[in-house]
């Protein structure tokens, strides 16, 4: 009948390896992996890619993407990626980091890589918590959010405020592209993919440093169901971490 005309319109991208992931139900890492995989396929980058993996739940990213990869110490991925890209400038290099890795221990490395305008791309998955190690406070944990190291909820006077990384990165001289997206609904997922594509293109064109933050959920450590966690992104996170493009040098009429 109509099966004769049916077309497969959505399938796993080539670059995403066909295996079950270790991520919790409702964790958005899988969505982010898929977007990256699709772009590597669409832009013909997979065989030219050198991934610098980081430390966190996504430490096994190299098991899920069919690309060469090097494991970096916690927080150091932007430095390792700097070394990889300076050593092999013709390769496509990206890091994939969580909020603990990037904004806590790795704060110096990400800021300076951005400031130097290193020609690689950063995928920053922000779920406001240290997931892999069991739910401790992260630099992006929100005020009042209970974590295993803020059992009474994050307190401004004791722990300070959550850090908005995209804004900081956008303010640095070498950043060519900085945007914040979210993975909570189809519209935002589509936009997030556009942001990633832009960042990747900036590297392809040798324009400069691209940074994309992706708001994501951690149902397990937020002690919520996947559906509740997804809603938290919409109700709590997006208002504090507004979505959008914060820097795009192609809009500014060129790079020096």
């Amino acid at each position, binding site marked *: 009948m109509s099966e004769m005309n049916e077309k497969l319109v959505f399938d796993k991208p080539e670059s995403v390896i066909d295996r079950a992931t270790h991520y919790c139900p409702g964790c958005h890492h899988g969505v982010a992996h898929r977007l990256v995989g699709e772009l590597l396929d669409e832009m013909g980058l997979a065989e030219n890619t050198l991934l610098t993996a980081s430390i966190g739940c996504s430490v096994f990213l190299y098991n899920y993407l069919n690309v060469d990869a090097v*494991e970096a110490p916690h927080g150091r991925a932007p430095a390792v990626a*700097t070394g*990889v*890209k300076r050593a092999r400038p013709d390769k496509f290099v990206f890091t994939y980091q969580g909020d603990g890795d990037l904004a806590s221990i790795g704060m110096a490395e990400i*800021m300076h890589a951005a400031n130097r305008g290193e020609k690689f791309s950063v995928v920053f998955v922000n779920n406001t918590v240290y997931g892999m190690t069991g739910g401790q406070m992260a630099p992006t944990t929100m005020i009042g959010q209970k974590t295993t190291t803020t059992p009474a909820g994050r307190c401004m006077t004791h722990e300070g405020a959550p850090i908005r990384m995209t804004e900081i990165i956008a303010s640095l001289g070498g950043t060519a592209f900085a945007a914040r997206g979210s993975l909570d609904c189809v519209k935002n997922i589509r936009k997030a993919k556009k942001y990633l594509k832009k960042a990747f293109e900036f590297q392809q064109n040798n324009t400069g440093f691209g940074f994309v933050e992706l708001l994501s959920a951690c149902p397990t450590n937020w002690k919520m169901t996947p559906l509740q966690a997804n809603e938290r992104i919409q109700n709590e996170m997006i208002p504090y971490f507004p979505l959008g493009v914060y820097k795009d040098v192609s809009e500014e009429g060129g790079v020096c």
Partner: protein
Amino acid sequence: MTKKPERIFVKGNEAIARGALAAKCKCFFGYPITPQNDIPEFMSSEMIKAGGDFVQAESEVAAANMLLGAGASGIRAMTSSSSPGMSLKQEAISYMAGSEIPAVIVNVNRGGPGLGDIGPAQGDYYQATRGGGHGDYRHFTLAPGNVQEAYDLTIRAFDIAFEHRTPVLLLADAILGQMKEPITPWEPEKVDEESGRDWAITGRDGGREKRLIKSLFLAEGELAGQNKHLQAKYDAWTDLAEAEQFETEDADLVICAYGSIGRIAKTAVRKFRAEGKKVGLFRPITLYPFPNAELLELAKQGKRFLTIEHNLGQMLDDVRLAIRTVADSDFYAIYPGNLPTPDELEEPILKCLEGK
């Protein structure tokens, strides 16, 4: 008409940098710290001129991790620092060792602990030979004793790094780094710049299987296997141990000293020999692998030992371990913070000669 080899008059630091260039080092990542700033400063222009790349990193931590990345992609790269900065690099070095990433790291040892001073010292020996970071690992450690050796051993460091897929430490000190001597620069005949073709991450060109450079081994038995593999690698280095022996054949007393102190001790040995005293010098050039066999040979001949270091007794442990079955070693400490002279060594050497 024979061509005279060019001679240049350079600091130890510059000799190290020039040796790296001769070894076709392609990337240098550094950070300012006294007394090694000549190295990143030289590299900031010369590395670029040589078609490579240079980054002044935001910290020694970052520089070491940049080195890790470059090495993982199979490219010859180097970093340099001095004691406090070396402490910062230990995490990355442990990762390099565990992931089997080739890299060259230079430590121009200064006084410690903590901020210490900016003068010479040998207080980083333990860190340099025991694997200064976490876990059971070692790296090849070379200790030049003069500026020519600093140049030569830097070239060797790269070869060892890539042949054995290991970080290699070149341990100098502020004396060596800052002193100027004439040297004959030379270029190795052939440098395999693309070595590492079959393990390095270079992109899955042509659709080959993906490669992974990591040190995480979680599956049951995996980490044990990796450690066994690394240990076997280190055991195989035993034959590469090297030392200089000076006037040891008929010596009653053998001075054990390395690096700049080895050189100063040599002067003292010459002085004593001129007076007819039977003193010799055993100068390890590879600190890891330590030249145990050679040293034990001397001990079996009934010689006595005096270890002299610019620290409070670190290589002393290795000397004692090497000769423990037949002898022991006395020790004289030149305190970090003090500048050593040959005269200072006279009394302790004399005491040792007359002592037993």
